[in-house]
């Protein structure tokens, strides 16, 4: 049995919360030790590099135009920042933070704020530089944030699917396939029923059915879950590819013509709030569902009896079984629920974004979602953050492509940006990660 007691469970396990698994009680020794000098200096070094990049690269490397334009939203709230003054000032601010980190060191709990401060300084400096080549319309801040949410939505939903499965001890490599089948069912369902709502339901059902397949082979027949996931992806690709050619291409009017795509629904009053309004209260139905699901999955996993059982089953199924938890039942439900979530992500791709299904339209997003699960340390919040970071970097990359930067940046280099940012952020912020101990372990073990 390779499952071992959890060294540090993310949440305290209280007696009132459900049956206590003796092996899982963590040692409650909280020592607020200052970060070791090596770690402190490494952090300072990274901050210093970011600060110097702002000053030397984005500031002194700026083009001839002495200002950079920004807009809060649409045509409103336009303001300009001086270039190279702004990048240099922000760079100096980051350097000061780096110096403090090197000499005294920030307490650990400050780390997210320090990183966020440095990241914002860096991005603003970069955007100043990017606009210093030629006059343009200015960067629309709301639009870039909105694009980030838009690009992150399928990733977040896919990642939530992964979190649910993996927390219960089942590796879900099949997110990609579940998404693809969901996208397919969404478009076909919406076309046949002439209703986008039916399409969304069809996508969720299709994803759940893929979840059933995953559960059947992983739990009943105990197939290696990683290999199974890869096979299920091939199955979804083959199935949708074949149906696409045999049905959707032959008679697109009947099978692949949903009535447009889901339009944003503005919530009265709230959607008028600057920046936050368009971001949170003027989205389509799947994005609203996603907002709700992030909270629901987080609460269910960490605040309910069901969640505790799920995590117990994912860490140490044998121990969970001895206190009366039906391990396979918990896993079945989580895997199917995960499939349904990934199916919803698929619906966002077809009827939520463009309105039709096209061959292999998930295009690897399921794998990015899987990466977000790991980068987010198997927690809904972390996975959401990772997916949003990826979405933001993608939006930034697309924006920079439209600007005439002082030094031309090859688009293929820019295309690496989202991946690069995510990898660095993960290496720097997340560090070593530990998956649920029983993931990819068949139960009962032989």
């Amino acid at each position: 049995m390779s499952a071992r007691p959890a060294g540090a469970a993310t949440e305290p396990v209280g007696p009132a919360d459900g049956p206590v698994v003796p092996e899982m009680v963590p040692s409650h020794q909280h020592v607020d030790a200052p970060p070791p000098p090596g770690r402190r200096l490494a952090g300072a070094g990274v901050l210093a590099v970011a600060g110097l990049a702002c000053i030397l690269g984005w500031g002194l490397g700026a083009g001839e135009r002495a200002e950079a334009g920004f807009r809060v939203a649409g045509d409103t709230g336009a303001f300009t920042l001086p270039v190279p003054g702004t990048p240099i000032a922000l760079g100096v601010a980051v350097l000061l933070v780096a110096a403090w980190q090197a000499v005294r060191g920030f307490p650990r709990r400050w780390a997210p704020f320090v990183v966020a401060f440095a990241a914002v300084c860096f991005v603003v400096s970069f955007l100043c530089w990017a606009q210093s080549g030629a006059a343009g319309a200015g960067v629309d801040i709301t639009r870039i944030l909105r694009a980030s949410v838009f690009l992150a939505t399928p990733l977040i939903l896919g990642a939530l699917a992964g979190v649910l499965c993996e927390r219960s001890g089942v590796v879900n490599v099949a997110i990609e396939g579940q998404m693809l089948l969901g996208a397919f069912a969404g478009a076909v369902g919406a076309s046949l029923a002439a209703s986008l709502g039916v399409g969304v339901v069809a996508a969720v059902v299709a994803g759940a059915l893929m979840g059933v397949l995953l559960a059947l082979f992983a739990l009943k027949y105990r197939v290696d879950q990683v290999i199974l996931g890869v096979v299920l992806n091939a199955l979804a690709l083959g199935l949708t590819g074949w149906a696409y050619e045999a049905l959707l291409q032959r008679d697109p009017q009947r099978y692949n013509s949903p009535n447009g795509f889901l339009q944003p629904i503005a919530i009265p009053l709230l959607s008028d709030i600057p920046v936050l309004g368009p971001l949170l209260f003027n989205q389509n139905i799947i994005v609203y569902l996603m907002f709700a699901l992030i909270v629901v999955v987080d609460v269910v996993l960490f605040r309910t009896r069901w969640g505790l059982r799920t995590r117990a089953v994912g860490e140490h199924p044998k121990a969970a079984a001895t206190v009366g938890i039906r391990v396979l039942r918990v896993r079945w439900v989580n895997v199917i629920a995960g499939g349904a979530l990934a199916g919803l992500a698929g619906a966002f791709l077809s009827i939520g974004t463009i309105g039709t299904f096209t061959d292999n339209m998930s295009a690897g997003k399921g794998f990015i979602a899987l990466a977000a699960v790991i980068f987010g340390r198997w927690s809904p919040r972390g996975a959401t953050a990772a997916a949003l970071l990826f979405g933001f970097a993608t939006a930034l990359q697309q924006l920079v492509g439209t600007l005439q930067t002082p030094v031309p940046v090859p688009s293929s280099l820019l295309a690496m940006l989202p991946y690069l940012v995510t990898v660095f952020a993960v290496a720097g912020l997340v560090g070593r990660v530990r998956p649920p101990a029983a993931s990819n372990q068949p139960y009962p073990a032989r």
Partner: protein
Amino acid sequence: MTKTFARAAAVGAAALLLASCGERPDEGAGATPGATGGAAEEKFSACMVLDVGGVDDRSFNQSSWAGLQAAQKANPDIEISHVPSTDDAAYVPNLQAQVSKGCNTVIAVGGLMTDAVEEVATANPDQQFAQIDAAPAADNVYGMQFNTAEGGFLAGYLSAGMTKTGKVGTWGGLNIPPVTAYMDGFWEGVQHHNKEKGTDVQVLGWDETTQQGSFSEDFLDQAKGRSITETLISQGADIVLPVAGQSGLGAGAAAEAAKAEGKDVKLIWVDTDGCESAAQYCPFFLTSVTKNLSGAVEEYTTAAAGGEFPEGQYLGTLENEGTGIAPFHEFDSQVPAELKADLDKVKAGIIDGSITITSQSQPKE
């Protein structure tokens, strides 16, 4: 453990079987010459290797295949078939498979296949090939190229005359000559309008002088296409030219979303007339920059089936109608008569050489 593995293998085999079903209709479409006996020997088989995006990409794959279908319609003795390429690793195996199948000619669709065609054509000197969007890579390859910079130039001139915001945009699938020829032409057309009419229209997403711009790095992902188009719209562009095959269809969704927000955005489609190939977005298509792929493929195949393999290459221009701009369809009444007359003059100027296009991406004679 053995049992588990056996089950996994069974599932895998089942999945592979199903997956292979997806490919079958394509392969089945082409009868193997010689396999059906004596009668087949008189048949001429033309096999097409498509680029990624599938046969219905509403763009260059579809258009090339239409040419082959037209050739068959005119001459029923021509047997036609196509295979899709799932990614660039599939080019060589696909081409090789067509050679082994005994096709009389193999037509490779897309400039990305150039290296693969060269490799396979050199290894099979007796096999006749044709390739779209590249100069002949070997003696037994016939090249079909299109100077879409000329069509793009007209589209750019038209856009500069039609924009209300003073900004027009373009983006591509990849930064490669068959794509950037359109974008260069578009950019030059706008500059020409600025010079002639004293306007100050800006091009977003591409600059011929630096050869840098917006690319989706993808010919499939429509979600990317939508968000890049939306980025250009947010930067002020009201006419957008996507040059990215199926990925470009995302621009249609972007225009629809912009319309819901009360913005008036027009699009220019490429390769085929958008109002025919992607009719659902026709209300947004100002025009299309056409590339007469189907005509060139049909002509080549008909000639080859007649026993005459053409040599060298075909270059589509405004003059021989290998490229151009499609009708304005729903915008016909909105394009001023003066602009239409100017476009005719510009077209004549390009043909007689009084207007020169400097794009480095345009194919050479």
